[in-house]
């Protein structure tokens, strides 16, 4: 963790020498937790002070509204999930959007009037209690969505995870294209049964909430959607989801499973020789990455009160991948920071920056629609990062070493390779 370095840096700030002296005496765990705690407090209190922040900042104009922040944090959650697959286990996934779609539609199936033929209720809240369709408590639906998506990830992973890296990327891309198209077509016309509502999607999806009883007893909101501060409630909830995801991701990274992922990423053959069960370990990476993607998908579905097929473009997969690359593959904090920046750019930032540029710098008769070129900008970012800083903005220490040595091309590997070639009877000819 970056705590140690951060501690030294803070201790050196001018005027903070005294603080620095005490700071250095703190035990590692405490000192490392302080910056995180500060950030969490800043984030939790954000809804209260966002309105008093300046609204005409150069370049970025305004700070993100609460409404946008919800979307931003959902995307960061997905990026953290993708980081498990791409960053930890080193499996390039170009179809992460499939998991997002499965999560959103699972929420649609279990918490809306989509299946009006049946009338199933379990812990659902508010006026939806009398409606047709399946209405499971939304908190359970998040879990169901996560588990369904994880199972989806396992099903996709089992046959494909044997494939070499770039083939795997293509297969995931294939799934990322098939699932949204299947979702768009699976209506009465397409498959004879209205499974997904076709191009109209599924709506309305139930809102999260605690119901009348908990409202009376503890003062918790009945439903988010009808509350006065709906956005704030959604914001705090997604913040909890994100923090739990980050926590799980951190603990997983340091677990036996996480170390196995990193071993596979560094050298699959060596990891296999050391007894790491390759398929099982990779499948777990897939399943867990998918799990968080599914929860994020379900959350955005309840936030938008609907799941629509147009949300699940290949572009989203690349957008999430861009977050992971920009932050540094495998570097959790890097991914979180890059995720916040990029998701903000996508939701508000590019429009704001574009408006500012058009008003202040560029000639007024040729305004440029900056948001139109968002994916060109992300593409450029990806290429520049890969060319000049492949380890990302905040590199993970181990990853940095891997890249600098050239993955799998270290001096020792090279020597082994050469000797093996020489030993082969046919002089190591390919074939």
């Amino acid at each position, binding site marked *: 963790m970056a705590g140690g370095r951060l501690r030294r840096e803070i201790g050196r700030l001018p005027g903070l020498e005294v603080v620095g002296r005490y700071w250095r005496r703190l035990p590692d765990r405490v000192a490392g937790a302080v910056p995180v705690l500060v950030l969490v407090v800043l984030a939790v209190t954000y809804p209260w002070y966002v309105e008093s922040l300046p609204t005409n900042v150069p370049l970025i104009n305004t700070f993100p509204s609460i409404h946008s922040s919800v979307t931003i944090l959902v995307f960061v959650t997905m990026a953290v999930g993708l980081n498990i697959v791409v960053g930890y286990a080193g499996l390039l996934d170009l179809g992460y959007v499939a998991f997002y779609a499965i999560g959103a539609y699972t929420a649609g199936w279990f918490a809306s009037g989509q299946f009006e033929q049946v009338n199933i209720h379990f812990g659902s809240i508010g006026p939806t209690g009398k409606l047709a369709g399946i209405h499971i408590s939304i908190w359970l639906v998040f879990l169901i969505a996560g588990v369904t998506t994880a199972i989806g990830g396992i099903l996709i992973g089992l046959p494909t995870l044997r494939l070499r890296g770039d083939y795997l*990327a*293509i297969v995931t891309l294939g799934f990322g*294209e*098939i699932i949204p*198209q299947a979702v768009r077509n699976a209506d009465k016309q397409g498959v004879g049964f209205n499974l997904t509502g076709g191009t109209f999607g599924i709506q309305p999806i139930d809102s999260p909430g605690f119901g009348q009883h908990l409202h009376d007893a503890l003062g918790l909101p009945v439903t988010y959607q009808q509350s006065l501060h709906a956005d704030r409630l959604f914001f705090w909830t997604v913040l909890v989801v994100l923090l739990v995801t980050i926590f799980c991701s951190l603990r997983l990274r340091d677990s036996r499973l996480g170390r196995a992922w990193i071993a596979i990423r560094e050298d699959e053959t060596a990891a296999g020789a050391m007894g790491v069960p390759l398929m099982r370990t990779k499948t777990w990476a897939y399943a867990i990455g998918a799990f968080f993607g599914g929860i994020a998908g379900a959350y955005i579905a309840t936030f938008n009160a609907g799941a629509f097929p147009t949300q699940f473009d290949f572009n989203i997969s690349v957008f999430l991948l861009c977050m992971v690359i920009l932050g540094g593959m495998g570097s959790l904090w890097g991914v979180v920071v890059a995720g916040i920046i990029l998701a903000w750019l996508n939701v508000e930032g590019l429009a704001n920056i574009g408006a500012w540029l058009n008003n202040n710098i560029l000639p007024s008769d040729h305004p440029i629609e900056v948001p139109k070129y968002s994916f*060109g900008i992300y593409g450029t970012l990806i290429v520049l990062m*890969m*060319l000049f800083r492949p380890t990302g903005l905040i590199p993970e220490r181990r990853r940095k070493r891997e*890249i600098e040595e050239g993955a799998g091309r270290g001096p020792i590997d090279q020597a082994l390779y050469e000797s093996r070639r020489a030993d082969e009877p046919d002089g190591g000819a*390919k074939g």
Partner: protein
Amino acid sequence: MNWLAFIGNRRGPHLTSVLAIVFLFLLAAWLVKNFFVLHDKADFFNVFLIGLTTGSVYALVALGYTLVYGILQLINFAHGDVFALSGLFASTWIVSIFNLDEQSATLVLVGGLFATFLIAMVFGALINSTIEFVAYRRLRAAPRLAVLITAVGMSFIVQNISLAIYDVNFRSIPPLISGASVFDFRGVHYGWDAFFVVLVTAPVLVLMTWLVKTTRQGKAMRATSQDPEAAAIMGIDVNRTISFTFALAGGLAGIGAVLFLVEFNMRYDSGFQLGLIAFTAAVLGGIGNLTGAVLGAVLIGMIQAFNEGLPWFAPGPDWTRSIVFAILIAILVFRPEGLLGERTPEGA
């Protein structure tokens, strides 16, 4: 998970072969049934001819993927977008500079189209080799996935260049080649516009095979794709050969793009989907294998045409992409070397 071990286990190919045979049998049965369901039997052959035309365009793009993959083991994601950009560029020449339309004199039309083909070819070649020079060349020593990710990024960059220049509108060219019949046999109609596509593609393919098989440059390409280091020792300029390969791929994409314009409209993002379909064709035929790419492309063209044109239990155009990607996944899982490719140690 032992019970799933048969998946991808290509040393004991029994189950895979059985599955493949059952699948092909069902496919044949489906085609035959469709043939008898059709009122007008001629439609069956019309659909077949549509598939041949589409497949020819796919072949030109698929060859680009296969050439580059053969030499660098890189899936050049940007290839489809190079295709779209050259197509849009060609449409400008046809519409605004040469001012070709259906009333133009035959000689003007032939000359203009020929010039357009040349321009699109050179343009595609330039763009494609520039991409290689700017991005991929610096990553020769980098891990494979790093290059692949860069290719995805380049794809978006090229797509946005098209967007910046040509905006979101579809571009089309006037119907330069008439749809009049080459032959019309009992309702089987084959128009000149469709024939034109095959008429251009076939010689280009022959020319390219000759280029790769017999010329010095072609031999250098094949040597580099087998072993770049050994090729360099033998005095082959590896960088130049790779640039040439990218240029050749881009040139083929340029020709394909003009042919695509003859049949369809095009806009900045047309290339991405088409590129993925063409890539599937290359994988189906055996990536790295030139004949395979053409075979795969024609097959994919047929599958698309039959799916969209037949009446009995055909999923229809909404599902074309899903079917194509399902083929892609099935091929990669069960037979990564494709129909004509050889088994490679890296195949699994």
